[in-house]
């Protein structure tokens, strides 16, 4: 059953090569991503029931537990939404003569491959394969980042591929050292399998594991956009097409963060305390938040602004993981979910903005609320949400994280965090709010949404983040609790 998740994208890629009409491309991608979501959501139920989902075939490399199912479901949910959004998004570009059939096909193929690599990364037990998959995500999404194929897109893509490949390579070094630390502890068939590592964590070689952790932190941190390895992120996110930005920001970062979490869990268990990893994670997390907060203040390009806000939130999650208390882990995982939903909604909105106004420059835009009555409103609310305003969901998780921080008695960090949240909010408010009001100068734009299904998606997401702020469904809470206990290894 779960294998279908790995099969469907590949099949759909083949089908893409076969068909000749744009309509079929859309249909295939919708059905594929729809199917995958249909499959993935019930899996969560199994995980809650049985704790894990494993299959014996092929050396039993396929492995799902509550931690990975959380991230996986986010991937497929947002993948589905992005697929729906892409239809009209691409159609509009085709109508404007920017794309042809070949480009659309390329887009869908790469998108499915991108999803495939991420699913692979999340459903394997073997850290080596996970690494391969995460490296592959980069390769699959490079041309999506450079999709528009102008100078800017190309530059962004080059930076993306070089920096991420280097980072991931460093992560490989880390995995090797982890491997080294487990020599003589695990027997050969469970080498690099992190479940085994987790079980025997106590007997790993501490110092090698520590060395491994720093390499993995740098490596996956690069992919997760932690400062100071975040540098590729604003370029890539701002240049990619909106649905892809949504995927990159809402999903890819999470998958990388997933790697870090697994690793931190192992190392913490083998070291017996979270101080070592905690310090590093907190340092990088705070640095990311600071950088994001400072850069957002005077940002002129709204997609870059959103990208920096992603950096900020990855930093927040890193800090939460760093504290490694049950409450902070809970908050961190919750924050993963909330941030992905909110941020992907924002990027989809930005896509509508971009197609309506055809500029990314904030000063050139006015009267969004008039021009885009629905997605514009959603954008405004989303900005409030991402800045941590109640009753939206990001607020809840940020509150949880703050509580855990203060609970640990580290008041300074907590206070600094709270202040930084405010600075980010102030930056977003001063930079962005002006685009919503007033009325646009050039009159040839007529108000109204172009991307109807996309707008529906945006509205759905808005409703979700609006409700989950106060009332998160019990299964999810249950999942998060399980995941948290898995991470803390008790």
């Amino acid at each position, binding site marked *: 059953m779960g294998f279908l998740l790995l099969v469907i994208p590949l099949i759909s890629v083949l089908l893409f090569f076969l068909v000749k009409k744009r309509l079929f491309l859309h249909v295939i991608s919708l059905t594929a991503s729809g199917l995958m979501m249909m499959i993935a959501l019930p899996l969560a139920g199994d995980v809650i029931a049985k704790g894990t989902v494993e299959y014996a075939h092929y050396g039993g490399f396929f492995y799902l537990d509550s931690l990975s199912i959380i991230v996986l479901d986010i991937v497929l949910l947002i993948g589905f939404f992005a697929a729906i959004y892409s239809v009209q998004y691409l159609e509009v570009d085709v109508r404007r003569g920017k794309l042809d059939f070949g480009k659309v096909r390329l887009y869908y193929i790469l998108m499915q491959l991108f999803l495939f690599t991420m699913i692979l990364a999340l459903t394997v037990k073997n850290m080596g394969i996970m690494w391969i998959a995460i490296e592959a995500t980069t390769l699959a999404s490079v041309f999506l980042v450079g999709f528009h194929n102008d100078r800017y897109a190309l530059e962004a893509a080059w930076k993306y591929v070089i920096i991420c490949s280097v980072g991931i390579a460093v992560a490989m070094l880390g995995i090797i050292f982890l491997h080294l630390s487990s020599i003589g502890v695990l027997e050969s068939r469970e080498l690099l399998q992190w479940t085994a590592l987790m079980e025997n964590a106590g007997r790993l070689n501490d110092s090698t594991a520590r060395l491994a952790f720093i390499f993995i932190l740098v490596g996956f941190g690069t992919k997760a956009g932690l400062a100071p*390895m975040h540098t590729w992120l604003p370029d890539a996110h701002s240049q990619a097409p909106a649905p892809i930005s949504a995927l990159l920001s809402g999903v890819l970062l999470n998958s990388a963060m997933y790697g870090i979490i697994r690793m931190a869990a192992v190392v913490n268990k083998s070291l017996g305390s979270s101080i070592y990893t905690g310090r590093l994670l907190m340092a990088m997390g705070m640095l990311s938040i600071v950088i994001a907060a400072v850069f957002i203040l005077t940002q002129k390009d709204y997609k870059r602004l959103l990208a920096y806000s992603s950096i900020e939130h990855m930093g927040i999650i890193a800090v939460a993981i760093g504290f490694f208390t049950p409450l902070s882990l809970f908050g961190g995982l919750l924050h993963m979910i909330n941030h992905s939903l909110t941020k992907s909604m924002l990027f989809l909105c930005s896509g509508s903005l971009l197609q309506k106004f055809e500029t990314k420059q904030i000063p050139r835009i006015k009267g969004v609320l008039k021009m885009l009555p629905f997605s514009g409103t959603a954008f405004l609310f989303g900005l409030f949400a991402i800045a941590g*305003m109640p009753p939206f969901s990001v*607020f809840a998780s940020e509150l*949880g994280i703050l509580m855990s921080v203060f609970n640990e008695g580290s008041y300074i960090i907590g206070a600094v965090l709270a202040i930084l949240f405010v600075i980010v909010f102030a930056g977003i408010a001063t930079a962005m709010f002006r685009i919503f009001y007033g009325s646009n100068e050039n009159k040839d734009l007529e108000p109204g949404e172009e991307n109807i299904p996309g707008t529906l998606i945006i509205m759905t997401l808005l409703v979700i983040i609006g409700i989950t702020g*106060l009332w*998160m469904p019990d299964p999810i809470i249950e999942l998060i609790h399980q995941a948290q206990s898995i991470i803390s290894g008790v």
Partner: protein
Amino acid sequence: MGALQIENYIQMSVLLFTIGALAALALGKRDRLCNLVSNGICIASGLLLMVASVMKLLGASGLIQIGLLRSTLPFLALEMKIDNLSALFLMVLSVLVVCVSIYSIGYISHYYGKRKVGLFNFLYITFILSMIFVFTSSNAVFFYIAWEAMSLLSYFLVIFESERMENQRAGTLYIVMTHIATAFLLIGFMIIYSYTKSFDLFGSSDAIPDTAKNIIFILFVLGFGTKAGAIPVHIWLPYAHPAAPSNVSALMSGIMIKTAIYGLIRFVLDFLGVQHVWWGALLIGVGIVSAVLGVAYALMEQDIKRLLAYSSVENIGIILIGLGVSFTALAQGNETVGALALIASTLHAVNHTFFKGGLFLGAGSVHYATGTKDIEKLGGLIKSMPITALLVLCFSLAISAIVPFNGFISEWLTYQSIFAYISPGQPGTNILFILAVAALGLAGALAAACFVKLFGISFLGLPRSEEISHVEEVPVVMNAGMGILAALCLLLGTFPLVIIRLIDGVAGELIGRSVFDQLQGGFVITWYSMDLTGTAISPFEILIALGVLTLLALLAIRVYGGKYIERKYGTWDCGFEGINSRMQYTATGFSKPVKIVFRILFRPSRKTEAIGGTDYYPDRIEYKVASESIFEKYVYLPAYSRVRTFSRKAKFLVQTGSIHNYLIYIFITILVLMAYNRFV
């Protein structure tokens, strides 16, 4: 009259409000109907709420608990708890809501066809709801959420007329300032949580060490002070309140800034418990500054609503002075004075709610009728809008602390509490107190000047511009809404014991000391202070005396002077042909002397330039006077620009765009981490 019934009343009114909000959205297309329905529902549920809160205040003390929907988030309990303090503020809120909603029935009519009435009413009602939750939340997280929702909704109301650029700026400034303030509150809550492991507002704070309490107090003063608009963190207020539609400004200035006072009482006095004298002293200091500077800036304003907004700053200052006296007294264990001062400040909060709400509604009426808020363009409105003029006059007298209106009572109580507390032995606080007395006096006199200007320039004399020479009176509902408030001001001014009886319950519950038996009399209100023989005033008898004496004067004149012969004639124009409106004293001119006397505050600057013609006979002379707010010029703007430049520089310093730098970052990170790993 058990607690159960009160509970049901409140549930009903909350439910009604919700229904009203939804109805407003549903009927969005049909402006008139939507407006009638939603405001009608507001009035009804407001009355329910008023009944419930009065019952609570008169009934036995104790908590009323009302659970709302459950939240699955572990650290959040959506539950209302109502004690006398909440009930008092709920009562004030409901009274104001009823009056404002009556007013809105007429006022909103100028939106018909132009704006989304449904959306406006939805925001309006949800704003009220959020304030109800702020006043009744039993748990800090719930409080925080309600607080933020309040800010958010009021932000949308402030920028409701968003096509004007200054409204957008005002809105952004407002939401940013209030969010920063909220961050301080959040930190405070978190520190509390880290010690008590709970967010319950009615729990005990014994687990919190003293230093932490001091820090929390500072944070709360910053946070709530910003919301209250206390100087120097007031800068959002004079921009935001004028930007909002007038009925919303009435709510914001009338009750929303009081949520901060509620917060200070609830969290500091009730939860933390006053620890040190300097807490009170700090509040008194802030209060003095706010009271004097607030009214001084108000006097300089030419825009009615900005003037009113600054005067709100002043009144918040007065409230804070009262609160500060209460804190100081409590910190030194003098519960009687503590209770008295608490009553004084809460009473002033109540009074200010009524007359300031009324004044903003009046400003709304003027704007509704004339289309301008600029005093310099108004004049002579008393002839075309007699009722509005009369009501505004009442409110102006009330806010200038003049008998027989309610503003005087609360100031009298504040004076009395200070008087009762000044005693030998603590020179420091004594000097602060006497300064507070001076500040109160100065603020009162300046307020009188300020509102003479407001009333005199805009309602008396000749019309200062063509278009307002033929306006007509506003619809009767609007005047009805204001009329109720004016009647309340007079009632509470002449029979203050009515309201003091209610507030005494608050003091009794919070401080455990009821001073009602020391404040006696129905017509005469007596304060038996310091077990000396009491000091009594009787606004009612003064009112009677004024009436009788006027009659006597009339009688005497009639007897000695014969019948009254009146001759209408033009105003003395020094023999010129016909005096015209340009010759009248302007609002700027009216406040000029004060401006010059207090030039340190205003940095007045003037510029005269002769345009065209010869030096001796220019065609046109332009004369500009400007006065600036020192805080904006010397504190906020520099800080803001510094931050922005820093961010701009840092951005390009780090994100250089060269991939080599990016790789170097990674490289150095690896090296540093390896070294760290080596040494740890």
